[in-house]
């Protein structure tokens, strides 16, 4: 409670600061224009004009080229695969005025392509990004001119292009290093994410697309999100009936898979590191060997071992314990769902425990021995020492690992997909008994072509994992007391 009360005035204060900042920026902008040299004034309209005015020709030419380049794209709208960039791309974002087929000339065999709504959305967003970049460069060009003005005012010579480049290797080295990273993040991370989010508001699924034309779809507002509660979407009642069970199992799986592997690994590490145990290195090597085998091979091997004609079923049959094969991992419709769930958790322990064991071994070897000696002097038992020294120490260090492991298990595609394929399946639904949100998402998009519903599931998965990660991490000791361990 007290923290909430304290937070309120802070927020108000922050708001004031934001408005003040905006006001100051605007006033600075006006001042900059009024006080600027003719070159600076002109650079508000013609990029690089200020630089030309200060005889910084190369820099000015680069700014001007960028302006002309972006304006040319915006005006002339070059196209790729028949879909334009520029102002036409902004217009196309409405997904109106589309054509299904292209023109064909039987004499020459020339065929032009029809509209592609995916590219229309993508190029629309790229164009918006270009507009943002345009204003960024616009600001940079004005700032550059103002800097030259100021240099002149204090009697300094405006910097040359060579000096600017040298500055990039010195004072602005961080800018040089971070630029490719930022560009890569924008192109490979932000743009696809924005595109994926946009799809959640469209009719982009194989069924509707085929009705309209194979590459055509429309915006449909929040309908795909409503479908989670009403069942009136491209996935029918599946999204309504299976969303909560799949979400629930995803949580149960993530919790059990994380903690079984975590504590299993700690116990194993404790056993291996026990004083007096002979052949420690051999034990460690044996467990590390399971990591050396690619996970998908281990999982497929287990799938075969537990299969209908696999050795495990065969052994039970030979022993006379069963007559018909048991569907241990739910590969057939009608197989037991609880059994399949238990089996995936057990198999996951087999592939997951060695990782924790390896990490915990290192941590255990680094716990200061004087802590144990002091505890022993005070008369602490072995159990007490474990709970009061070992466990808190290990947890303190491994909390970030625990969180990333939990989130990783929410998105644990391999284990489920390779082992059970999400089965046992239920007629009428893509989501089987052991499907996680992420494997269901795969089936919904790849098998069913319901990309819009897939995007909705993706957004929900993101919100859940992001929320859990932030809350848990911010509340953990590893975050709050990162400098100390007590």
């Amino acid at each position, binding site marked *: 409670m007290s923290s909430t009360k304290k937070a309120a005035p802070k927020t108000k204060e922050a708001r004031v600061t934001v408005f003040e900042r905006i006001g100051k920026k605007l006033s600075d902008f006006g001042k900059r224009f009024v006080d600027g040299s003719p070159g600076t004034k002109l650079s508000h309209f013609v990029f690089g004009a200020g630089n030309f005015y200060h005889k910084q020709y190369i820099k000015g030419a680069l700014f001007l080229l960028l302006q002309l380049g972006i304006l040319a794209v915006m005006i002339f709208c070059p196209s790729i695969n028949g879909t334009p960039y520029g102002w036409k791309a902004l217009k196309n974002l409405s997904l109106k005025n589309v054509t299904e*087929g292209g023109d064909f000339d039987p004499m020459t065999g020339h065929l032009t392509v029809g509209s592609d709504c995916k590219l229309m959305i993508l190029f629309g967003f790229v164009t918006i990004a270009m507009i943002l970049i345009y204003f960024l460069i616009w600001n940079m060009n004005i700032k550059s001119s103002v800097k030259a003005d100021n240099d002149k005012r204090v009697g300094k010579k405006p910097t040359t292009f060579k000096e600017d480049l040298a500055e990039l290797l010195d004072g602005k080295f961080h800018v040089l290093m971070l630029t490719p990273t930022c560009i890569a993040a924008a192109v490979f991370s932000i743009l696809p994410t924005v595109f994926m989010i946009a799809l959640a508001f469209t009719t982009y699924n194989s069924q509707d697309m085929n009705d309209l034309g194979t590459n055509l779809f429309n915006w449909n507002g929040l309908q795909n999100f409503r479908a989670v509660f009403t069942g009136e979407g491209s996935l029918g009642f599946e999204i309504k009936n299976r969303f909560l069970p799949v979400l629930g199992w995803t949580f149960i799986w993530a919790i059990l898979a994380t903690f079984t592997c975590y504590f299993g690994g700690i116990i194993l590490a404790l056993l291996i590191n026990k004083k007096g145990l002979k052949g420690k290195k051999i034990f460690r090597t044996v467990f590390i060997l399971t990591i050396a085998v690619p996970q998908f091979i281990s999982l497929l091997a287990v799938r075969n071992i537990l299969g209908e004609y696999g050795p495990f079923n065969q052994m039970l049959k030979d022993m006379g314990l069963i007559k018909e094969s048991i569907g241990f991992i739910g590969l057939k*419709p009608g197989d037991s769902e609880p059994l399949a769930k238990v089996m995936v958790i057990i198999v996951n322990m087999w592939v997951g425990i060695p990782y924790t064991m390896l990490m915990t071994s290192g941590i255990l070897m680094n716990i200061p021995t004087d802590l144990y000696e002091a505890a022993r002097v005070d008369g602490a038992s072995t159990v007490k020492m474990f709970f009061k020294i070992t466990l808190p120490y290990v947890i303190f260090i491994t909390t970030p690992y625990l969180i990333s492991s939990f989130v990783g298990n929410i998105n644990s595609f391999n284990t489920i997909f390779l082992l059970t394929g999400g089965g046992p399946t239920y007629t*009428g639904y893509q989501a089987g008994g052991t499907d996680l949100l992420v494997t269901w998402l795969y089936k919904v998009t790849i098998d069913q072509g319901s990309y819009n519903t897939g995007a909705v599931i993706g957004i929900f998965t993101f919100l859940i994992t992001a929320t859990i990660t932030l809350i848990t991490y911010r509340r953990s000791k590893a975050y709050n007391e990162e400098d100390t361990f007590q």
Partner: protein
Amino acid sequence: MRKLLALLVASILAVSLLAGCSGGGKVKDDGVIRVWVGEESAEFYQKICDEYIAAHADFGYKIEVKGMDTGSVAGTITNDPTAAADIYTVAHDNIGKLASTQCAKPIVDESLVSQVLADNPESFQTVIYSTLNGKEYLYGVPYISQALFLYYNKALVTEEQAKTFEGLQEAAKAANTKAITVTGDDGFNMSFALLARKVSDKSTTVKLFEGAESVSGGSKGKSNCQGDDTVAIVRWLQDFASDPNGFKWASPDGWEADLNKDNKGALAVIGGAWHYNSAKAALGETNLGITLIPTFKLTDRAVEGLSTVKAGDEYRGGTFADCKCFMINANSAVSKYAKEQELIKYLSSKDVQNKSYLEVLNVPAYVGAADYIKQCFEEGKVSESEYMLAASQVSMAEWGIPQPFITGTLNTYYYSKNGPAVFRAMIDKTAYPTTGDQILTETESLESIRKGLYLIEYLWMHGVTPSEFPAKLPEEA
């Protein structure tokens, strides 16, 4: 060090910029026509193409043939048509999708069109056209025929027993195993039951998008899945699947594990030519028998309450009778167009189809190929199993129809909208969702079977489940 890093960063930016600026230009004619065929046939077609160039010095192009997995090649092409070959091979079910996504261009050469119309059966001719801007064009040129047939374990099943489901059941009883399985539970494999035809007149009431227009969003034609014969077949299969020596769905370990001579999971499997090597590996060449999909007789329970079918009526398991086709990539250089059509005309000629049967066992698609196949066997040019592999497919083609997917939509509706899953649930007698979120738990009565079949037909036509069942389900088609 800093200069080095800066240089590295500048290089990365420059390369990214260049990569970003590349592509998107006009397709250039590089003097090579690239052809994608099935992996097993690549060497053969390269040889055939080399021979053609040697005999036609004025052809003017080099030809490069590459083997591709024909099952996934359509996806490869739609993902990036610019990277696909000039001429590629796909099963005919992909024509609608490839045409409507402008991954393929129409074929207009008159002599080639005439050859296609003269050589191919009418059933193929209905599925190789598609429309562009309202006009119908030929898109695919058939050159391989495909149909389902039966592989069986000759060590445990006699030739006579393999002719009927009842015979297989008898052999399975003796071997204490299941009689027959399929290679998957998808819409393609369930055709053996849904498309079964009456032996006496090869009739069925099942219709799949009959008369559908070959344009996206056009008429989906007529479908029917509710005839008395279909109801009776479902009931018969329900009983046959419940029998300890009857039908089983393919094991999750794979149908090969079922057929395997050591596992003895099932004595026979309904499959296609593409399963030949796996079936041979599972049984060994000497134990591998090949024949038509067997016949079965309707039982008293199967026809109970039905007026147009009788107990004892004999049906043969059905199949989709498909063809593989050559198509021209829409992104191929315009200047190659005429030569591409010339090359396809040659590659799809009867002569080359015959050669491809002899050398790589591709079953010819043209009308009358059965005579040539028989002649080859009689002349000792092919082994018995190689002959049966082709002869069974040619014979089964008479009992089948081409797969239903003139447009991408029908393909999706038939395969991906739960129709096959509902059919499996009906046969397994397990519960399944029907209208809205209602679950049908009773699956054996006549009413529930009619409901299930209505549901399947509705899914075929609309891609979604109906909001409710009609007040009165049709008593017959």
